[in-house]
């Protein structure tokens, strides 16, 4: 047997199978080699199938960016004048029109009149008769009239691209120009008029009708999200990602702000920073002072998890609480909000979000100290003691101040092992007063030998969380500009209120925490 009759090694056979090397005479006639080559080729199938596809959100975002670029690019690349092959749809429509004209003339009936109507909103729209349009590629029962760009019309490309709905994943998105597009996206100008929010992507139904991307949402429209997440945006206020199956509506609040009411499901809200908004549920309302948070309606309660900024949760007639980054708060209708807790499962709170909308960075909550007085005064370490407190109905009431006659009540903690201070530490106290008054949280800073204080006016009747990062605490000595520095020592805190006249101050909890 000559060397050319010998079967080549696996490497050579794989190279042949890969098309890297040609098959020699031996391989072509050897059944064993052919079998091995077939086996090597079978590997390719596994490789071909091992493909990751992007999320529809990711693709839609890219398409939107491309369309934005295309709009800029269309200025750089002027359209040639006159008939051109590059306008096939317009030409085909013209061709059909001419054909119809000829047929009508032949039959002796008056020719149809081309209807050119001004667009109700936005740029001029030419609405052809139904038969002249190719069948719509995307079902858009509630979409506005199709935007048609004719030869002489100004090209208008929506700022926001339609996102392919998960209900119609196979439907190709509308072309940018040329074709008679059934694109449901409204022109920028028209979208803002009368719309509280705009559906950006995802399957959403109003009753039995499906909304298309770009659909405007007006006051009190009740909407249901389909089987994948939906993105709703309110111009300048916020972008909302709603979980599959969520039910919600948008409305105007008392101050004209957008209110997204969640009747079922959960929503991730990201502030756009220009105007205010809130997310409400049957249990209460979450008003952001920051940027990102999740509201999840659960059985019997609502949970707010703050990713960034601060969210004030208000329950009608029962009080409010601020939820800081990395904390979560469960609340129920008619009940005072509990103390925000570190969101131990903060990653879980956002795991339902598509990767493209998920927060890049999650806060790491650090609960340094937490004193709850629901079951009385918490035990303290050696040498530490509660001062000026008496337990009343699951909270502590501050005792009448004997130290300062201009103060009504005062209470606090003296603890020699109190941790070091830091400007990033947030101090929060949940308090209630029986008349409107100032409430002050004081921290004695050993380094500057002064009290640092935070003064807040509290309205009577409801539990209210007051607090701020220590960097916002001001020195009590007039003219002093000292602020807390990292590592400053302290020996506890004091909370006082009132002006010397009779006052009832109750304290439910005091929390020291540090965000990310």
């Amino acid at each position, binding site marked *: 047997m000559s060397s050319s009759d010998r079967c080549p090694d696996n490497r050579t056979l*794989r190279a042949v199978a890969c098309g890297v090397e040609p098959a020699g005479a031996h391989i072509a006639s050897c059944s064993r080699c052919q079998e091995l080559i077939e086996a090597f080729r079978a590997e*390719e199938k596994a*490789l071909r199938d091992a493909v990751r596809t992007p999320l529809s959100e990711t*693709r839609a975002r890219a398409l939107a960016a*491309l369309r934005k670029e295309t709009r800029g690019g269309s200025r750089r690349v002027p359209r040639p004048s006159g008939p*051109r092959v590059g306008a096939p749809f317009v030409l085909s429509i013209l*061709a059909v029109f001419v054909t119809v004209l000829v047929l009508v003339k032949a039959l002796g009936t008056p020719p149809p009149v081309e209807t050119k109507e001004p667009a109700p909103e936005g740029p001029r729209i030419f609405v052809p008769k139904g038969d002249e349009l190719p069948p719509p590629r995307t079902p858009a029962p509630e979409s506005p009239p199709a935007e048609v760009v004719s030869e002489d019309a100004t090209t208008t490309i929506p700022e926001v691209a339609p996102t392919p709905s998960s209900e119609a994943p196979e439907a*190709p998105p509308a072309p940018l120009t040329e074709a008679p597009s059934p694109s449901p996206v409204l022109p920028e100008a028209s979208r803002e008029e009368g719309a509280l929010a705009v559906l950006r992507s995802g399957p959403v139904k109003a009753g039995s009708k499906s909304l298309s991307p770009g659909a405007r949402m007006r006051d009190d429209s009740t909407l249901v999200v389909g089987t994948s997440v939906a993105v709703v945006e309110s111009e300048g206020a916020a972008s909302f990602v709603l979980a599959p199956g969520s039910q919600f509506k948008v409305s105007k609040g008392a101050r004209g702000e957008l209110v997204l009411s969640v009747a079922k499901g959960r929503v991730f809200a990201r502030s756009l920073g220009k105007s205010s908004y809130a997310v409400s549920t049957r249990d209460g309302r979450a008003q952001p002072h920051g940027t990102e948070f999740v509201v999840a309606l659960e059985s019997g309660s609502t949970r707010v998890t703050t990713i960034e900024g601060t969210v004030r949760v208000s329950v009608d007639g029962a009080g409010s609480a601020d939820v800081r980054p990395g904390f979560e708060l469960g609340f129920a209708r008619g009940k005072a909000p509990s103390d925000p807790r570190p969101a131990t499962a903060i990653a879980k709170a956002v795991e339902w979000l598509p990767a493209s909308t998920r927060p890049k960075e999650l806060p790491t909550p650090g609960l340094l100290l937490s004193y709850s007085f629901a079951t009385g005064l918490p035990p303290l370490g050696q040498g530490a003691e509660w001062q000026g407190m008496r337990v009343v109905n699951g909270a502590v009431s501050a005792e009448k101040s004997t130290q300062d006659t201009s103060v009504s009540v005062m209470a606090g903690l003296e603890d020699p092992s109190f941790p070091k201070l830091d400007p990033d530490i947030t101090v929060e106290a949940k308090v209630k007063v029986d008349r409107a008054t100032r409430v002050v949280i004081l921290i004695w800073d050993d380094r500057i030998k002064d009290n640092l204080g935070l003064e807040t006016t509290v309205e009577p009747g409801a539990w209210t969380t007051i607090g701020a990062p220590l960097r916002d605490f001001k020195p009590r000595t007039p003219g002093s500009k000292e602020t807390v520095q990292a590592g400053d020592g302290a020996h506890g805190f004091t909370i006082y209120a009132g002006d010397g006249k009779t006052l009832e101050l109750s304290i439910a909890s005091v929390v020291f925490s540090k965000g990310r």
Partner: protein
Amino acid sequence: MHLLIGAALASLALRKYAPLMGMAPDEADDAALMEDACRGVAAAFEQLFERYYDRVYHYARTLLRDEDLAADVAQETFVRAHRYREKYEKKLGTVRAWLFSIAANRARTYAQRSRRPEVPLDEAALASAESAPDPFAANLRREIIIDAIEQLPPELREVIALKYQNGLTFEEIASALGLNTSTAKMRALRARELLATRLSALARGARGGGET
């Protein structure tokens, strides 16, 4: 006569933009779409986006091993391709090779920025192992194969992504990555060998321990 002209024009439009009207995407070719895109027909470029976005995304994902970065790269690829579409020349290669060359450049830039450490691959150990075909390896779960591809050195996994998952020819790969054709071939072969060895080992493990 009018009827004939109308029908001809309509036919031309239908043929050229067949995919937009629900017909098979193969009917219009990339070069013609690119020509139209250069004339300012945005729909033509959007059709290219439709054809290649997922592939470019997957290529970037394979190279960068990060879905967010891959999304950014894929998006930038098409935005840049549109911006510089007039610089595309047919004689320099196919449209898809040109698109992937943009993607490759963007991905490399992102890879430098993100500096995600590569998992060192014990090539010597793998090279000495058996690289015979293993039919069971082909039946491993898709995720396991993807993981194995992502453990390849970047210069090998990008060839795998282009050759076997995007169907580029070796000439196109060479054009996209700035290599000569034989280097592209050698890389593909090397990648296949490493993968086969790795997957065979996994398959053997799966058969032994039921891990797959």
